[in-house]
């Protein structure tokens, strides 16, 4: 055992910190730190800055243009980027479909799609959930029938994040209707400009629009957009869900929210003093910070374990649950900073137009919707209930 961060990792941390400080555009940083909504171009702009430096794909092997970092380095990179106010790198291309293409794709598919993921020439979205297939994902019914040199797709996807900005979608579709429900699923890449696709926005609690319904009405997909073997898509789906592990703990968000909580509580007044000096409030901040310390060390243990190929031990699902709870608690306390001033809400003011009149400024206007919006993180990507089932079944053998 040696609990010190290695010299190389420390040097790497400083290098990333200096880079982000220098290169992250101020307007983007401000919007991220103040919980405003980003536009498509903000994400693309930051991705291209990273890509220029060779850091566009932290999780990819070098052979595909990735940074080739260790899990520890990737964690440091995430932490530094998130706390400094960088936008998250959109995972749908980079961390979802790309690893799938690298493992199951043909050389042609890899050559065609991977470079365009790296510089975000393509914006990908994820066609997994359906109205009847959420936690029970393999109950999906969207179907693809063989037609000539391709497939005809009919059905519906839901909760598709940023489908309104995407020009590609990767989809789980049913190509075979017999046997277990996990069998007969295939993994298709679909051009969003194909005739027969309709995207309908879903307005959320916070007044925002990230998620959509996507409808497929006789959409033709060429056969070479099938990834891996026909009917064997479930294995690919599981590979994808299990692939991205470091971000599962949400540590970067936790740290950014904690930093902002302290800043906002210092700038808010209670009885004429900074709210952070109010013992009752400060104690709540302290308790979350203590949990955050333990959470970080759980993640460091997981990273070490996975780096050594040791499967057993701390479970990634536990980190997802804890990370979501800490983030949600932080969004709650951040909203509490605003007190009564969190109530009036102008949704348009979140979209980057500084001239819109809000009751108490753009920052306070954003805090309650951010709290509401963040309820989603214990629901998506396998709800916390599903994560607990996984722990009970797979880890504890119950």
């Amino acid at each position, binding site marked *: 055992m040696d609990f010190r961060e290695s010299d190389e990792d420390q040097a790497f941390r400083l290098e990333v910190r200096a880079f982000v400080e220098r290169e992250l555009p101020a307007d983007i940083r401000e919007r991220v730190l103040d919980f405003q909504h980003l536009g498509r171009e903000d994400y693309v702009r930051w991705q291209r800055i990273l890509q220029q430096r060779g850091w566009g794909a932290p999780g990819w092997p070098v052979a595909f243009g990735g940074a080739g970092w260790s899990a520890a380095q990737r964690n440091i990179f995430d932490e530094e980027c998130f706390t400094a106010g960088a936008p998250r790198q959109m995972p749908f291309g980079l961390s979802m479909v790309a690893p799938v293409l690298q493992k199951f794709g043909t050389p042609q598919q890899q050559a065609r799609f991977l470079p365009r993921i790296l510089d975000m020439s393509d914006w990908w979205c994820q066609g997994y*959930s359906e109205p*009847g297939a*959420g*936690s*029970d994902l393999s*109950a999906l019914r969207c179907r693809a029938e063989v037609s000539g040199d391709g497939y005809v797709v009919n059905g519906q996807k*839901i*909760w598709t994040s940023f489908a309104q900005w995407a020009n590609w979608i990767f989809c789980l579709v049913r190509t075979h209707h017999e046997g277990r429900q996990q069998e007969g699923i295939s993994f298709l890449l679909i051009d969003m400009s194909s005739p027969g696709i309709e995207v309908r926005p*879903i*307005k*959320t*609690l916070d*007044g925002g629009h990230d*998620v959509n319904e996507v409808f497929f009405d006789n959409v033709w997909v060429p056969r070479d957009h099938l990834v891996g073997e026909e009917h064997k898509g479930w294995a690919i789906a599981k590979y994808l869900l299990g692939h991205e592990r470091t971000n599962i703990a949400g540590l970067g968000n936790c740290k950014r929210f904690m930093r902002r909580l302290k800043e906002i509580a210092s700038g*808010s*007044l*209670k*009885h*004429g003093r900074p709210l952070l000096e*109010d013992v*009752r*409030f400060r104690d709540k901040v302290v308790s979350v910070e203590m949990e955050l310390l333990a959470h970080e060390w759980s993640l460091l243990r997981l990273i070490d374990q996975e780096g050594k190929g040791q499967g057993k031990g701390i479970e990634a699902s536990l980190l997802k649950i804890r990370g979501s709870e800490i983030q*949600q608690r932080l969004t*709650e306390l951040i909203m*509490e900073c605003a*007190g*009564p*001033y*969190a*109530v*009036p*809400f*102008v949704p348009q003011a979140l979209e980057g137009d500084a001239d819109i*009149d*809000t*009751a*108490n400024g753009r920052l306070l206007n954003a805090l*309650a*919707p951010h*709290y*509401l*919006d963040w*309820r*989603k993180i*214990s*629901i*998506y990507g396998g*709800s*916390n*209930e599903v994560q*607990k*089932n996984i722990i009970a079944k797979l880890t504890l053998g119950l």
Partner: protein
Amino acid sequence: MDFSLNEEQQMLADLVARFVERQCDFETRRASAASARGWSEDNWTALAETGLLALCLDEQYGGLGAGAEEMLLVMEAFGRGLVLEPYLASALVGAPLLQRVGSAQHKEHLLPVLASGEIRISLAALEPQSRYDLCDVSCSARETQEGFRLVGRKSVVSHGDSADWLIVSARTCGAQTDRHGISLFLIDANSPGVSVRSFAGLDGQRVAEVQLDGVNVARDALLGPMHEAIEDLEWAVDRACFALCAEAVGCMDRLIELTVEYLQTRKQFGKPIGSFQALQHRIAEMLGLSEQARSITYYAAANLNGEQDDRARAVSAAKTLIGRAGRLIGQHATQLHGGMGMTDELAAGWFFKRLTVIDMSWGDGDHYVERYGALM
């Protein structure tokens, strides 16, 4: 003690239940929230016709002279219907406060038209820096030859844009956070120097920022004793909190019903998700919280018109527990609805948002734990 309704209370409960059933369906409410004032004129007229606007006024002004139990029945029903109209702000807080501290002339002039729904009145007590502290008043009122001149800003005034009259707390002497030196003034919202910016709250109800740029009022605009308004102000805010608690109880009950319906109908893994124990335990916890919320609200009702300290303690306890319960019930309900719980489309999310706003209105849990502690 008797926890069942007497005949008159049952009639009142039936009346408000009918109002909610007929006038407050979710889609109509959505349209009303999007209208210019953010609420429905039809509903307001209906509230006036049934006499509910005069619920807490004395009989001499056309009122029903009702007590805390009746306020509770009405607000609980309104919570179930997510009523948007400025009922709490005007009929349960503004008008009763005017009745308490207004001159005979004010009362004769305004209470009948408040009872008939022709006008509305809101209390403007918080400021941009005050947070929930009613004593933190920087808005000033200086004596002039004719009366007073008010300068300052009031924040998050419930339905301030629909109010024809405002009751404003202003400092007439002392330092910014002194209990002594606060006075109440009755201001015509259309007076020169008053500007009102209105915003929809998270829950769809309107709140306003009120700017007072040298508003001149006559001497008789002073309500109650000069410099010594804090106790009347606390009386009014305790009523507001109690009414919010009762509303929250209705919100919680309805939200739990909606969640149970969802658990019974939504299927995953071949069965209703309500058959999974993990979800059953979560909703059982919600039910426990809502029962606790109802109990503490009854306790507050029993003390609302009692001794000042008893009232303050009871309302502080209720508002604290209601805030916690509302937050947890809202969060659990969202989780149990899965993705659907995150949508604007479902009523469930709007109950969650209303409960969130109730927690943040007139003092959150920390505020009332502190107040209760000071009174122990």
